C-alpha cells in the first residue's frame, strides 16, 4: 500500500502553471445567467485549446488519455486555482460515459470533439413531474416514425437547459412494456422545432434549470444511444457516475475546506472552539473523501453501490461545510456572495441524483444485504 503521487506530479506542475497563467483574475458572471453561460463556454474553449477540458478522454476526442490519478490531480489543481465552474459538466460526466459504453463509433466521432471544445453544451433531461427519483415512472414518449422518433411530453429539473444546445435522456418508446422496460435513450436539439423551454428559478431565483415541453420533436435514428427499448439499462449504467467521484471530485471539497480554514483564520475568534471543531470536521471529511478517492481508483472493480456511499458523504459534507461558513460569517452570512452561492448549491446535494434517502436504501440492500423492503 502506498500514496505515491509522484507519477502525476509532472502533469500537476503543467496544469498548475497553465491555470496560474490563464484563470481569469475576476470571477466570471454566474453560470446561471445568459451572459455568464457564454463566458463559461468561452472558458471551455480555452481549456480545450490547452487539451485540458477532458483530460481523461482518449486523445482522438480531445483528451490526453490521463490516468485516473492524473484526473484526480487535475481536479485538485483546478479547484485550488479557483477556476470557473464547468458549464459542460453534464455532457462530460453523464453523456460521454454513456456514449463510451453504448455509443457507436460514428456517435463518438460526431459528439465528443464538439463537446470537448464547448461548441456544444449538453443538458440532462431525465426527471419529469411525478418522476423525480423514480425513473420507472417516466411518461414522456418517443414514437417510432420513418427514419427516427417523435418526442412528446415534458421533462423538468433539466440543469443548464435554459441556455444549453442539446439534451439527452430516456423516453418511453413502448407504452405496453413494464415500468423499467420500453424506454429509449435519445439525444435531441434544444432549439429544434417543437421544443419549448421554460427556465425555472432556483431557490435563490437564478434560472439554474428548466422545464422542457416536447411537441412532435423529430429525432433521427442516429441519435438513439444503445438499443431502442433498452434505455433503462443505458441510463442506469451511468447513474454511478452522477453519484460517484466524477461529478463531485475530491478537489472541489479540498479547495472549499481550505477556503473555510482560511476564512476561520481570517474572521473567527481563535478561542471559539465550537466553530473551530466544525471547521476541523469539514477539513477532516474533505481529506477523507480525497483518500477514499485514491482507494477507489486503486481498486480495479466497478464502484457499483459504493457510489451511493459516496453521494451521501459528499452531499452532507458539502452542506455542513457551507453551513459552518455562514454561521462563521454571522450577520453577513445571509448576504449574497461566494459562500452563500456555495450554500445554495449545496442545499441541492442531498436531493438530486437520487435523494439521500434512496441512496441509504441502496446501501442497506446492496452493501449491507438487508432484506428488500417496499418502503
Amino acid at each position, binding site marked *: 500500500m502506498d500514496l505515491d503521487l509522484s507519477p502525476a506530479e509532472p502533469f500537476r506542475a503543467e496544469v498548475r502553471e497553465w491555470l496560474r497563467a490563464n484563470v481569469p483574475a475576476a470571477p466570471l458572471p454566474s453560470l446561471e445567467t445568459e451572459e455568464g453561460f457564454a463566458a463559461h463556454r468561452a472558458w471551455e474553449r480555452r481549456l480545450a485549446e490547452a487539451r485540458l477540458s477532458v483530460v481523461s478522454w482518449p486523445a482522438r476526442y480531445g483528451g490526453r488519455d490521463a490516468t485516473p490519478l492524473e484526473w484526480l490531480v487535475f481536479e485538485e489543481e483546478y479547484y485550488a486555482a479557483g477556476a470557473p465552474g464547468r458549464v459542460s459538466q453534464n455532457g462530460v460526466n453523464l453523456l460521454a460515459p454513456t456514449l463510451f459504453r453504448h455509443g457507436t463509433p460514428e456517435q463518438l466521432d460526431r459528439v465528443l470533439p464538439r463537446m470537448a471544445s464547448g461548441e456544444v453544451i449538453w443538458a440532462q433531461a431525465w*426527471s419529469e413531474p*411525478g418522476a*423525480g*427519483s*423514480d425513473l420507472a*415512472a417516466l411518461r414522456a414518449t418517443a414514437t417510432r416514425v420513418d427514419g427516427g422518433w417523435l418526442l412528446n411530453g415534458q421533462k*423538468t*429539473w433539466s440543469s443548464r437547459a435554459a441556455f444549453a444546445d442539446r439534451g439527452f435522456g430516456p423516453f418511453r418508446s413502448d407504452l405496453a412494456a413494464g415500468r423499467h422496460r420500453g424506454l429509449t435513450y435519445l439525444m435531441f436539439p434544444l432549439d429544434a422545432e417543437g421544443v419549448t423551454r421554460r427556465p*425555472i*428559478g*432556483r*431557490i*435563490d*431565483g437564478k434560472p439554474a434549470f428548466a422545464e422542457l415541453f416536447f411537441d412532435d420533436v423529430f429525432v433521427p435514428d442516429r441519435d438513439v444511444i444503445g438499443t431502442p427499448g433498452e434505455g433503462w439499462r443505458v441510463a442506469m449504467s451511468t447513474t454511478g457516475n452522477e453519484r460517484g467521484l466524477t461529478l463531485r471530485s475530491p478537489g472541489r471539497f479540498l479547495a472549499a475546506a481550505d477556503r473555510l480554514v482560511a476564512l476561520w483564520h481570517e474572521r473567527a475568534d481563535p478561542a*471559539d472552539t*465550537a*466553530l473551530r471543531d466544525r471547521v476541523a470536521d469539514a477539513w477532516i471529511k474533505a481529506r477523507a473523501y480525497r483518500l477514499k478517492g485514491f482507494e477507489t481508483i486503486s481498486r480495479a472493480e466497478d464502484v457499483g453501490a459504493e457510489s451511493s456511499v459516496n453521494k451521501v458523504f459528499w452531499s452532507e459534507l458539502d452542506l455542513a461545510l457551507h453551513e459552518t461558513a*455562514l*454561521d462563521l*460569517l*454571522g*450577520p453577513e*452570512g*445571509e*448576504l*449574497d456572495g461566494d459562500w*452563500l452561492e456555495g*450554500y*445554495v448549491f449545496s*442545499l*441541492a446535494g*442531498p*436531493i*438530486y441524483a437520487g*435523494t*439521500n*434517502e434512496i441512496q*441509504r436504501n441502496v446501501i442497506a440492500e446492496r452493501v449491507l444485504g438487508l432484506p428488500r423492503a*417496499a*418502503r
Partner: protein
Amino acid sequence: MKFVLDAEQRMFGEALHKLLAEAGTPAVVRAWAAGSPAPGRALWRSLADAGVFALAVPESAGGVGPLPVELVTAFHEIGRHAAPGPIVETVAAATLLGRLGDEAPAATWLPGIAAGEAVVSLALPPAVPYALDADVADVVLAVDGEEVRGAAAGPVRASLDPARRLFPVVPGAVLAAGPAVRAAALEAYDMGVLVCAAQLVGVGRRLLEVTVEYAVTRRQFGRPIGEFQAVRHHLANVLVGLEYARPLVHGAALAAGSPEFARDVSAAKVAAGEAAYAAARVALQVHGAIGYTDEYDPSLWIRKARALYTAWGSPAEHRARVMAALARG
C-alpha cells in the same frame, strides 16, 4: 398558574391568522422582494389596525404596551404567514424610543408606530449591523454606544431571502444620547430577539404544515411519501423541536422586565432558530426539487428560516449569553 394563552389571546392570534391568510401573503412577499412595497404597506396598516404595533408602544404614547405575550402571539402568525417588512425592527425601535427617557423622539415617532403610519428600521450593532428594508422605512434609527442617530441607507445588500433587503447605515443627526440609551438599546435588543424567536416558531410551524400536506398527497414508488418511515421520522423530529421551542418563547415573554429576560430570550432564540432551520431542511428534503424552486411557495419560508437563524444574534451568540447569565449565578 395557567401557562397557556387565555381565550382572548388565542382569539387575537386566530384573528391575525385569518387576516394574514386573506391578505394572500405569498404574493405580497414576492411584490415586496421585487421592489413593489405597496401591498406590504397596506398589510402593515391592517396589522396596525389589528393592534399589533400598539402592543409595543406604551400607553403614554398612544399604545397599549408593552404586552410581550400578545406580541409573541402576533409574531407567531407573522412568521407563519411570512409577512414582509421591518416588523421586528419597528417593535424593537418602539421599545427603544419608549425607554429613552428623552420624550422628544418618543413623542415624534411612537404615535405613528402605534397607528401603523411609521415604518421604522433599526441598526443595533454588533448583532444587527444592517437596517432591514431601510429604503421602505419612514425613519431609520442607528444605535451607536450611548447615541441614537437618525440614519440614511447605504447601497442595498441582497440577502438569501429576497424579501429581506439589508442596508448599511450612514449615521445622521443625534436623536438622543447618554447612559439611558445604552440601557434602552439592550431592552430593545432583547425585545427584538424575543419577537424574532416567536416569528421563527411561526415560520417552522408553517413549514411543518405545508410539508405534512405535501407528504400526504405526493406519491412516489406507488404510495404517498408520508408512508415512508424516513419521511415520517424527519417530520416527527420537526414537531418535537417546535413543541419545545414554543414554551421557551412564552416563558421568555412572561420574564419581560425581570433580570432573567435577557437569558430567557436568548434561550428562546436558540431553540426557535434550531427548530425552524431543522423544519426548513426537512421541508426541502421532503419536497425535493420542487422545494428548491423560487416559484413554489415553500421557498419563501425556507429562505426566511435560514436568514432569521443568524439575524438578531446567531445561536452561538445567544448560547454564550445564556451561559454568561448562568455564570453570574
